[in-house]
């Protein structure tokens, strides 16, 4: 797997949609971007809120730009972490990246065998960021499909 193609992206989207519909039971938007953070494919499932497409794209973009799941970055912006180690040092991150930066959990980077980031998947629409049924697990379902 050298590069993320439309075919691979659609395979990921299909698996993530199936997971969101059958197991999570929520309609959501899912986006796959390439190593430049540029959109390869976006799907908004029937019934998902309209604004979720943009949030899913932004989550995926952020995951590529920071080479880390947005779940990790969300810790930086959590006021509860003020004063803790690795906690509050990046509050100024809010509003960066020409408004595209989105540290809501749900974006996960995709890596190749050399551990280089070749793209990312982002999900928005499940009313939870962390946990068994969350945006993050829908994205994970998409990533799992790459290795099937």
């Amino acid at each position, binding site marked *: 797997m050298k590069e993320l*193609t*439309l075919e691979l992206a*659609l395979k990921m989207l299909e698996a993530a949609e199936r997971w969101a519909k059958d197991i999570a039971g929520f309609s959501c938007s899912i986006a796959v971007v390439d190593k*430049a953070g*540029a*959109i*390869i*494919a*976006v*799907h*908004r*499932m*029937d019934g998902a809120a*309209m604004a979720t*497409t*943009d949030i899913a794209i932004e989550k995926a973009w952020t995951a590529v730009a920071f080479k880390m799941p947005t779940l990790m970055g969300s810790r930086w912006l959590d006021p509860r972490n003020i004063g803790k180690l690795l906690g509050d040092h990046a509050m100024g991150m809010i509003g960066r990246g020409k408004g595209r930066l989105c540290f809501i959990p749900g974006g996960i980077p995709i890596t190749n065998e050399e551990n280089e980031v070749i793209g990312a998947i982002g999900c928005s629409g499940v009313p939870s960021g962390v946990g068994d049924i969350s945006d993050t697990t829908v994205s994970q379902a998409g990533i799992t499909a790459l290795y099937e």
Partner: protein
Amino acid sequence: MVMNLEMAKKLLQTGIQKAKEKGMAYSIAIVDENGWLVALHRMDGVPIPTAEIARDKAWTAATFRIPSSEVSQFGAPNVSGYGLNAQNWNERLTTIPGGLPIWKDGHVIGAIGVCGGSPDEDVIFCKKLIEEIQ
């Protein structure tokens, strides 16, 4: 009838198949009747900005309910709406050809935006795709 993901996927699948047959590559965006994105595919090797441009074309076609190329008629000095293109009231507004509304039973159910070829190619490609579902 309203635009749903199944219909959007079918349109995109046919579109990509047709494009591959012709050796072309496009970005294709499908929006619902209010201009909200339903699905967007960027084929391999197509320049990055085409994805957003395709979405802008689809938004313009869906909300104005006319082809995106015809929106520029409002910018002519002798008709009402002069300066529409210059006001920058909406960052999605575009007058580039390649966005067409999808009519069904007298209603606009959505729109399709294509970017990747010349403006004329984009429009022809759009028309062919819409014929597929009508």
